[in-house]
């Protein structure tokens, strides 16, 4: 089963890379943007075929390694 997770910076954490991307897009003429935030996308292919169990395991992975909860949030966006 493949679990997809997105990791984003929390709202009040400065995202200088997102800011630079925003400024660059602005300079290219995409001037309608309010904000750009950069994040991470992970795809975890697990041997577990039970959706609930697999998602629980991935949540544990997120808490223990994949994210730093001081600055980041995670969200499982797809399990198939």
């Amino acid at each position, binding site marked *: 089963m493949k679990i997809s997770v997105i990791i984003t910076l929390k709202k009040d*954490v*400065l995202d*200088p*890379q997102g800011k*630079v991307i925003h400024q660059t897009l602005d300079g290219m003429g995409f001037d309608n943007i309010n904000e750009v935030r950069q994040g991470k996308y992970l795809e975890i292919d697990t041997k577990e075929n039970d959706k609930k169990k697999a998602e629980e395991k991935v949540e544990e992975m997120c808490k223990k*390694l*994949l994210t*730093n909860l*001081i*600055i980041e949030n995670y969200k499982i966006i797809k399990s198939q």
Partner: protein
Amino acid sequence: MNSSVITFPGSNCDRDMDVALKKFGFKNKMIWHDEVELPKSDLVVLPGGFSYGDYLRCGSIASKSKIMKSVLNFAKGGGKVMGICNGFQILVEAGLLPGVLLRNKYLEFICKNVFVKVNNKDNSYFRDTKKNTFEFHIAHNEGNYFCTTEQIKEIDEYNQIALFYSDKAGNVNEENNPNGSIKNIAGIFNKEKNVLGMMPHPERMIDPALSGEDGSIFFANLINNLK
């Protein structure tokens, strides 16, 4: 005094630290991250570098390596653990120190000498030091210290700030903040003050012909305090 320097894949200040520790009288051992047991140590140092290529988040992978279980137990038993630069990042990822180190505010890799002001001398690292400010070297891309508002309250309450970025006279202000760190924080302790993490590199300041002597003052004082 026995010390151990842990080498992770991608550490690159481990040998400099070895030279510095030996110069000031430590019997130092280099320990590979894959070892399970720490040798008997009075001080454990996590050196600077780019462990695991800074994959995922700086220090996150190294913080889960085999030897870190021993380092965690050693620290929990009151053992002295010092993390420099990437070592500091590993300590926060391991949960031994609060907070996290973010990308520098202006997205530049910073490599220069800075002054840091000692905030707390009531610990083995800075007790009896005659200096109030040190000139150390910094070289990092992720040194922007960040933590939650609850954490900063607790850090203040337990007087956990070790070093502030400052000017030569010890003035702490935004002008002397190289990377955007909250409150100009350059180094912090755990509550018990046996664990220290800092971005500056004292091991690069141990030879007046090459750099400066403030690192010498730091290490000479440290070994005296540990005796």
